[in-house]
């Protein structure tokens, strides 16, 4: 195994932070002629300013490397990617974490926890498990294997993600882009990744590390940041969307609709819109359930699609009040152990306005209680569902519900955005309840302890993450 390339992408520019190169192109392409910068967290991200015409060269180069990749065996691909993933957190020192932290605007402790948690899905075992979960016979990714099913006993099938996958990342959760890149590489697709502004450091670092371990596979990966959706990048985006085989899009409905409108029909779109995580909490062992509840709120500072925003508490308002206090206590501990994002004045202003608004409503109606840290840290609100508005930061809404049926009724209103449902403090949940959650749009029902970090093989937004990237062929 080759040593991991530890070259930092950040150029230190003196005391006031540095800048980060938000790009990594295949080596045979000419270096960028001009750059632009954008502020992301505490860093300036520098990115090339290529012409739309350059998209053709980039795609062509990645396409050639992708063809070489498609000839590799799946075991080999898993081994390479897994070795990079395993080395990733181990080989990173404080400066490396500091760079990711500064880019994402997360605290160092949070950055370590997030990167280590994400990287658990990037090991050889985890990736092999992911491939097996979707392709019980992994060699189907190498060529035709006996496929069974209809059409007679001689049916053979193969799956391939060959070509180029374009990833449009969202925001500042480190690791989202890397996971998406790994998925494409596992199905032997070349990768062009446009990370979210706050996820540039890790995406570039991964691409660089892969190139250090396996230069051939590394040449099938390019990273390029640009401000997605801005008018001056429209021609570039259209050019890329018209040349790739598939695009994986993370972001708001506006972002997704914008990509849909510009992608040709021949480009397959895999969409991951913004999501809402909830939990259903029973009154059993309230201290035990408050701990993972607080972690589900604090990790990612509520920016992850799996983050839990609303807790439906089964057990009456008085018990809910006591549970809120326990949740608040645990969030206060995490405020110290896992400090939140350093807020900007605007964030603090929003928080004062938000808390004041809720406090005033509680003063007027009496149906609403607020617990909060002195500073930016965290807020717990006991309220009815109609009051709920996720405004970011460590904000937990607790909504008392009388029964599982009432909980399902309330969840129905969240159906369009529902994703992860965490469970805690409940007696064993019946199949009927889980099926009802599924019917409402939930794609992941797990113990609250397992909410923050899904396994590599999780059914992301209700789909098979590798299955969405491949095409099948049958031979009879």
């Amino acid at each position, binding site marked *: 195994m080759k040593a991991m390339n530890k070259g930092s992408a950040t150029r230190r520019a003196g005391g006031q932070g540095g800048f980060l190169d938000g790009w990594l192109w295949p080596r045979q392409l000419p270096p960028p002629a001009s750059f632009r910068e954008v502020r992301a967290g505490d860093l300036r991200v520098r990115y090339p300013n290529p012409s739309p015409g350059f998209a053709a060269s980039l795609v062509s180069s990645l396409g050639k490397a992708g063809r070489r990749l498609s000839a590799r065996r799946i075991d080999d691909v898993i081994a390479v990617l897994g070795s990079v993933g395993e080395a990733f957190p181990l080989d990173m020192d404080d400066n490396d974490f500091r760079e990711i932290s500064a880019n994402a605007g997360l605290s160092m402790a949070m950055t370590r926890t997030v990167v280590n948690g994400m990287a658990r899905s990037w090991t050889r075992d985890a990736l092999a498990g992911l491939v097996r979960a979707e392709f019980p016979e992994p060699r189907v990714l190498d060529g035709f294997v006996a496929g069974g099913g209809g059409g007679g006993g001689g049916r053979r099938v193969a799956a391939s993600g060959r070509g180029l996958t374009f990833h449009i990342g969202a925001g500042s959760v480190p690791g989202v882009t890397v996971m998406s890149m790994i998925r494409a590489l596992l199905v032997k697709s070349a990768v062009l990744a446009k990370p979210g*502004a706050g996820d540039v450091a890790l995406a570039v670092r991964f691409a660089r590390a892969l190139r250090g371990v396996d230069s051939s596979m590394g040449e099938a990966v390019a990273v390029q940041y640009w401000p997605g959706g801005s008018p001056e990048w429209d021609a570039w985006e259209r050019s890329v969307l018209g040349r790739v085989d598939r695009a994986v899009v993370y972001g708001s409905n506006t972002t997704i609709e914008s990509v849909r409108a510009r992608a040709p029909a021949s480009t397959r779109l895999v969409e991951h819109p913004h999501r*809402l995580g909830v939990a259903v909490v029973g009154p059993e062992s309230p201290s035990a359930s408050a701990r993972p509840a607080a972690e589900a709120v604090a990790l990612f500072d509520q920016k992850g699609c799996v983050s839990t925003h609303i807790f439906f508490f089964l057990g009456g308002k008085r018990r809910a009040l006591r549970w809120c206090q326990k949740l608040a206590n645990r969030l206060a501990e995490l405020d110290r152990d896992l400090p939140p994002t350093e807020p900007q004045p605007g964030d603090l202003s929003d928080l004062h306005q938000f808390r004041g608004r809720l406090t005033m409503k509680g003063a007027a109606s009496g149906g609403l209680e607020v617990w909060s840290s002195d500073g930016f840290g965290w807020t717990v609100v006991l309220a009815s569902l109609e009051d709920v508005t996720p405004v970011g930061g460590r904000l937990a809404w607790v909504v008392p519900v009388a029964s599982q049926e009432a909980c399902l009724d309330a969840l129905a209103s969240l159906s369009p955005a529902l994703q992860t449902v965490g469970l805690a403090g409940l007696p064993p949940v019946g199949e009927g309840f889980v099926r009802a959650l599924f019917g409402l749009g939930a794609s992941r029902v797990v113990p609250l302890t397992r909410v923050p970090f899904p396994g590599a093989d999780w059914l992301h937004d209700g789909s098979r993450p590798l299955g969405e990237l491949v095409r099948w062929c049958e031979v009879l």
Partner: protein
Amino acid sequence: MTVEGAPTIEAVVGELARLFRTWGAGAERRPKRRQSPEGTEPVDPFGTEFHGDASAFTDEAFDRLARRIHRVQFRSNPVLRRFWGERARDVASWEDIPPVPTAAFKEVPIVTGTSEAVFCTSGTSEGPRRRGEHHVGSLDLYWAAAQQNYRRHLLKNSGSVRVVSLIPHPDSVPSSSLAAMAGFISREPEVLGTAWIFSEARGVDAAAFRKAATADREPILLLATAFALVQLLETLKGEEIRLPEGSRLMETGGFKGRVAEVAREGLYRRIRNRLGVSESHVVNEYGMTELLSQAYDGEAGTAPPLSGRKHHFPPWVRTRALDPASLAPLPPGVPGLLAHYDLANAASVCHVLTEDLGETTEDGGFRLAGRAAGAELRGCSLAAESFLREVRKPLSER
């Protein structure tokens, strides 16, 4: 007039209106002390401090008055009492009274006593249901708070003027505090007549502007939001319409969210080039629905260059810049979140925390540094605006 020996909010409001109207007035206009019907104790709800020119609002006198009003609000308004908590019952200084964020005006009517009118903030991304409401106990108090201030900053040495208003007529937008103020101005004795040439439905009537601007030789006082001004200049395209000599302009940042932030330097340059009104005759009014008093950044006709301007409220308002994290007061020159204590808000709540960033100045003024916009919730999680649009809306449409 009193409840348990303390003044009622109505008495406070009435006395404040009289007091505000003395600002800048001579001794002959100062209110006389009045006696109670029994003739044994003063009716004046503030005690004896404020008789005469209101320019005597020393810090000490302001503090006494602010705390007295606070006691009335605390006693009379159970919602505010619960919001503040018991520890705010007796405060050592007005600065110890917790400010109410402007967003709280979106949740509940904050009214001490009864209200004569309800002014609403402009719409936001949350839609009209989430507009802030300022329940105004006395329109006369609003007029009193506004009048001497706009007279000083807009009409001083003006002689007779014609008002051209790009702010809608108050009858067409009765919920707009700005329109109400434009209505007050139109009734001033210097005003020969008012052309209302903006409606929310149709925007600026450029033809009416041309006609009004060139109809006579008396100077014009043009009242406008930045939004409407930009629309006017764009509607006129390259046309130059020189307003009569001595014309003045008040612009304000009304109708937030309906137009991109306008750089004031560029706007003032266009006003000079296209309308012939120099920078010294253009002043900015800083006001908000949640406050009944306004601040100006100069006196029309003698306003300083834009780069050196700062806003001043009348003396019954105190402004502080607060540390965005702790809300501790910051010294002059250090930017923070602006909070205003406006005695004219006696019938609602006086201490208001805004979303504006700025710094105070040694002379009691303040410099605005823009709006403290929070960072967008970045990631894969549903943000508030999307939540309201993508989750709440489908629910309401079912």
